[in-house]
């Protein structure tokens, strides 16, 4: 791992148990991802894309191997520190948007800043800025059920970006959107990536999304099949 890398996986394996059946989701995965990259993890359903994102996102632990995120060995970090790491270093965008339904667009974006103990004035400035960036300045009062799918995903992007993370993980971010909205969301993600230098890693099997990635990590049966640039270790 070099100082220019934000993620490094070394010999990472993960197996799930379903009763007596063991399913190997990832096996001996080694990969590095550089700062500012815009990377697609591509592969068919069940290939291990989501497992890989979960492990990078510190919401699951590997059975073997080592994962380093922004110079922190997360495989040796206690659980309570991982929530701080997720809050300050990572941003999440989910396929099903996963907004808090009882909070408005503004409050959803504000929530992580409250966890970070950001002052009310700074919170307000940052929330308004990011709602403006994603084009929802006028919809700040609306609750998720009053927004379209594309608007909800924009709120989710604002929520992921408002903490100024080093890495944003997006699991099938356009899977629940029509193609036109998906393209706009993709444009937005690419634009944020180029402007902020934040690393984006997204899982997808959508060809149009794969085509927009700077690098593509192809994954199959829990193994990295190929990486289109020479970044695999």
């Amino acid at each position, binding site marked *: 791992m070099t100082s220019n890398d934000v993620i490094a996986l070394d010999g990472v394996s993960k197996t*799930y148990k379903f009763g007596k059946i063991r399913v190997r*989701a990832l096996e001996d995965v080694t990969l590095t991802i550089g700062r500012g990259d815009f990377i697609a993890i591509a592969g068919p359903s069940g290939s291990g894309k*989501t*497992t890989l994102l*979960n492990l990078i*996102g510190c*919401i*699951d632990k590997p059975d073997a191997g080592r994962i380093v995120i922004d110079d922190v060995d997360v495989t040796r970090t206690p*659980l*309570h520190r991982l*929530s*701080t790491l*997720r*809050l*300050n270093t990572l941003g*999440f965008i*989910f396929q*099903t948007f*996963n907004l*808090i*339904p*009882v*909070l408005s667009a503004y*409050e959803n974006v*504000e*929530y*992580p800043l*409250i*966890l*970070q103990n950001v002052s009310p004035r700074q919170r307000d400035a940052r929330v308004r800025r990011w709602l403006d960036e994603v084009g929802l300045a006028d919809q700040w009062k609306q609750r998720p059920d009053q927004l379209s799918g594309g608007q909800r995903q924009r709120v989710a992007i604002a*929520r*992921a970006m408002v*903490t100024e993370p080093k890495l944003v993980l997006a*699991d099938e971010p356009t899977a629940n959107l029509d193609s036109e909205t998906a393209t706009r969301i993709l444009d937005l993600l690419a634009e944020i990536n180029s402007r902020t230098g934040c690393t984006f890693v997204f899982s997808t099997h959508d060809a149009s999304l794969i085509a927009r990635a700077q690098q593509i990590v192809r994954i199959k049966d829990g193994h990295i099949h190929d990486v289109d640039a020479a970044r695999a270790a």
Partner: protein
Amino acid sequence: MLIKLAFRNVLRNGRRSAITLTVIVFGAVGLILFGGYKARTFWGLRESTIRGRIGHLQVYKEGYSKAQSQKPMEYALDDAASIRKQIERDPRVKMTAAQITLMGLVSNGEKSETFIATAVEPPKDRAMNNQKITAGDDLPDNESDAVMIGKGLAESLHVKPGDYLTIMTTTVAGSLNAMDVRVAGIFTIGVKEYDDRAIKMPIAGAQTLLQTKKVEKLLVFLNNTDDTSAVHQTINRNVHGIEIKEWSELAPFYHQVVALYNGIFGFLGIVVFAIVVFSVANTILMSVFERTREIGTLMAIGTTRGRLRTMFVAEGVSIGVIGGVLGLTIGALLAFAINKGNVMLPPPPGYTTGYRLQIMLQPAVLITAFLVSFVTATISSIVPALKASRMKIVDALGHI
């Protein structure tokens, strides 16, 4: 944000929260009404016992307690007048009343019955207002051979006001003595066993019959029951050669009723506690199951497990606060309506007259009802909160 989230999540499933709140409100209202009824009953029983029968304090000659069962008049007060003068100097004392208790036989010439007589000072006895006259008049002030007779005893002896009876008892010297008395009136205190044996007579008549100038005891009545112990100490300091008992020592029935009602109230509290715990726990648990993905999201974006626990406990607190406030309001309004409604209850066991249902809204009752609602709702949210905070993020998000 935590409070806002908690309140909004409580309102999220309106119907379910409404059912839970209804349970809490019913519990709180039940506690307020029964607690208020209990408080009013205790207060009423205490004051009627004190002001109608036993006084706040009873003053006897020293040694009376030990000898009481054998020869009470041997330990009677020989200088009651000077003792009462000293006691009545205290502005907290409303009045004192001399009394003698005696037992014997009463006869109408054809039939005899045993009696228990209370010899009183007629004006003081009228002030105590402790009986209902069903026929005839109260005891006259200056007629030492007039008596009032209990309703049951009057029926047994077939007497009416104006009739004459003979009463017979043992004098302080131990010999038998009898006197003819005129029935001035017939009375009841509402307790059948007492009405079947009771006679009231002027203290002067009793002294003639017992051949003594002494009185058995002095009843001391205060303006305020709360001053009982303080006045007790003052009398003890100022008057010598006496012994004093407070009303609390002389009212075993009052203490039995208090113990019984407290037992019932405690049981009711446990039932309400259990119902509220299960109801609120059920509501929040269902909410946890429904919001599994949301819980996963909150943890994924950096919410600590501790904060998540607090969030769900805050929902329990919110339900408790809303339910408690609604319960207090509705309970107080119902109590007000009942007190205005003049609802009559049937006579309790051993009594012959019913009484008016009244609810006393004491701060202690209202605070207890609110705390039971609030604390139980909070406690019931702990298990669901732990369940939520122990979820594996990856499972909660539904991503495998």
